């Protein structure tokens, strides 16, 4: 009925479903077809805008996460930073790597996060968000050892690869975590590294030693929180 490229085809292209030859063909068509070129750009923009959309879907049985954009997350992180700078690290908390990126942690009821320091209280149902300020691009992860002695990876949401963290001030890690009902001490490790590293060694170390040792090229912040019933 028409010679244009359907939205389905564009969606497949954007999702990397299309074979290379079909992808090339579609993009070549868009170059010569004003209507399809405009539609492609429109869908591409929509895909980008979707990443800014906060989402609250319980993806995992125990933990749920949602994503927000760096700019949106930065609003929360910025608020956190203002409060954090007025507080000194508490006992049980350490930040490794002098003159390295500043790593922040906030938690609380969704939409009302407050900065967390060592031994602060958190509660089931609270959300937890890590933030950072870094002068250079890096990679990061947030790992936790909960009261049941289980190690959980909060960031990345899946996989064994650190997430990319673009340089910036008061930025958020790309996902937030809704805390479950396991009570007790919860050790949160926020990790920033110059180059991406596999998470498995970090997870294994946190499980066996309850902490993470210094690593070249990485900045690590350990915060031990107390999760109690509300």
């Amino acid at each position, binding site marked *: *009925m*028409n010679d244009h490229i359907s*939205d*389905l085809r564009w969606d497949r292209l954007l*999702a990397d479903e299309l074979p290379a030859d079909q992808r090339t063909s579609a993009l070549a068509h868009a170059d010569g077809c004003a209507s399809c070129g405009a539609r492609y750009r429109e869908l591409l923009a929509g895909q980008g805008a979707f990443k800014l959309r906060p989402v609250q879907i*319980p993806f*995992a049985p125990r933990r749920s996460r949602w994503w927000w954009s760096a700019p949106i997350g930065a609003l929360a992180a910025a608020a956190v930073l203002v409060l954090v700078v007025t507080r000194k690290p508490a006992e049980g908390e350490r930040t490794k790597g002098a003159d390295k990126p500043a790593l922040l942690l906030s938690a609380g009821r969704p939409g009302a996060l407050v900065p967390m320091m060592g031994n602060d209280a958190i509660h089931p149902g609270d959300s937890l968000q890590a933030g950072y300020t870094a002068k250079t691009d890096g990679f990061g992860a947030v790992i936790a050892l909960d009261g049941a002695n289980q190690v959980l990876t909060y960031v990345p949401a899946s996989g064994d690869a650190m997430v990319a963290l673009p340089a910036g001030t008061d930025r958020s890690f790309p996902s937030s975590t809704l805390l479950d009902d396991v009570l007790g001490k919860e050790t949160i490790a926020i990790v920033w590294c110059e180059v991406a590293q596999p998470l498995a060694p970090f997870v294994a170390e946190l499980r066996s030693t309850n902490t993470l040792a210094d690593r070249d090229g990485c900045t690590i912040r350990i915060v031990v929180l107390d999760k109690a019933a509300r």
Partner: protein
Amino acid sequence: MGAGLDVEGLYRKYGHSVLRRARQILASDDEAGEILQEIFVGLVARPEQFEQRSAPSTFLYAATTNACLARLRDRKNRLRLIDEQVKPWTTDIDPRSADAALMVRGVLAQLSEEEARAAVYYHLDGMTHAEIAEVLGCSRRHVGDLLERLGDRLAARKDAS
């Protein structure tokens, strides 16, 4: 099937498409957001519904269309749509034009389930017959028959109005 389905990954990769199409079909941001939530929460609860025999895009196109049509068919929406004036139908319009989208949305709730799906794919998504056949799981010939029947029904509606 469905075990180990990476719903988070699907959401990140295809969520924008689900949301956009739901907006196109329902013409409502709020309802589109609800459809997005409904589909992915449903996948978390029942991952086996995606048997992974087709591409995720194919599955989610069908799931979104079905969810939107179901919503359009509820009583409240049906009454709202019946009150709307259906614009005169033509078959040579640009399938992706705003006029076409408005027109198709206006009559979706009054079509048979199969005709409504075909109308969405053809007039809102601008799909080819082959693509529609793939998503509907039928032959291209059947798609042609469906669209022809759809055109006849809409022409009859136009004459009657």
